[in-house]
């Protein structure tokens, strides 16, 4: 049986920390359910995967976003980043500025992932 796939798209950035945990937690839970998760960071969402930012975010009793992200990477969950979002911010962000275990991809990849997934969630 081929695994079902869920694509989680993060468009919110570190200025809205309350919106950042859900995709990671859901993706980790998907693994426990034999579902293949993929995380995609788009627009302001890319601020989440710039090195040094996740460390600053901690909500309630949850572990820091950095810990959640590391656990996500350990579980082998793909973290994809929209390259053009880097241009939009006008910042000189380079692929090496992103957290380890992430990969820079493009718009065609996102379109393809959406059609390929059995469901998508946008945050």
């Amino acid at each position, binding site marked *: 049986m081929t695994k*079902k796939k869920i694509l989680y798209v993060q468009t919110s950035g570190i200025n809205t920390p309350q919106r950042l945990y859900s995709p990671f*937690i859901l993706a*980790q*839970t998907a693994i*426990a*359910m*034999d*579902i293949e998760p993929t995380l995609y960071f788009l627009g302001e969402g890319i601020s989440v995967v710039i090195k040094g930012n996740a460390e600053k975010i901690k909500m309630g009793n949850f572990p820091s976003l950095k810990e959640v992200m590391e656990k996500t990477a350990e579980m082998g969950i793909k973290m994809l980043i929209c390259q053009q979002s880097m241009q939009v911010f006008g910042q000189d962000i380079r692929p090496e500025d992103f957290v380890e275990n992430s990969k820079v991809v493009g718009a065609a990849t996102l379109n393809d992932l959406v059609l390929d997934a059995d469901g998508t969630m946008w945050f």
Partner: protein
Amino acid sequence: MKEKQCKCPYCEPSLKDNLGEFCTPCSIDSKIKPDEVLDCTGLYCPAPVFETRKKIDSLKPNQTLLMLADDPASEEDIKAWAKRTGNELISIEKEKDIFKFLIKKLP
């Protein structure tokens, strides 16, 4: 109390401490004696799902797991988890605020 007279292996004192005030395996109304017991009381979503998955992975096919949880989300979550992973949710019982899930690992 009645449970103190019970001689089943699950009434071994250290395990019973984990189960709180219930001698759950003895009181469960089922002929199936679970092969393993997992106490997820005090844990909240998504931890019971993660812990259940880990425990199920350590079982052999067709073995059974009794999982206890007091997270109200666990009732629907474990149903969804079982449906997606193909493990069989034999029964759900609720005693006070604790759900008791009897799960059979898929063959």
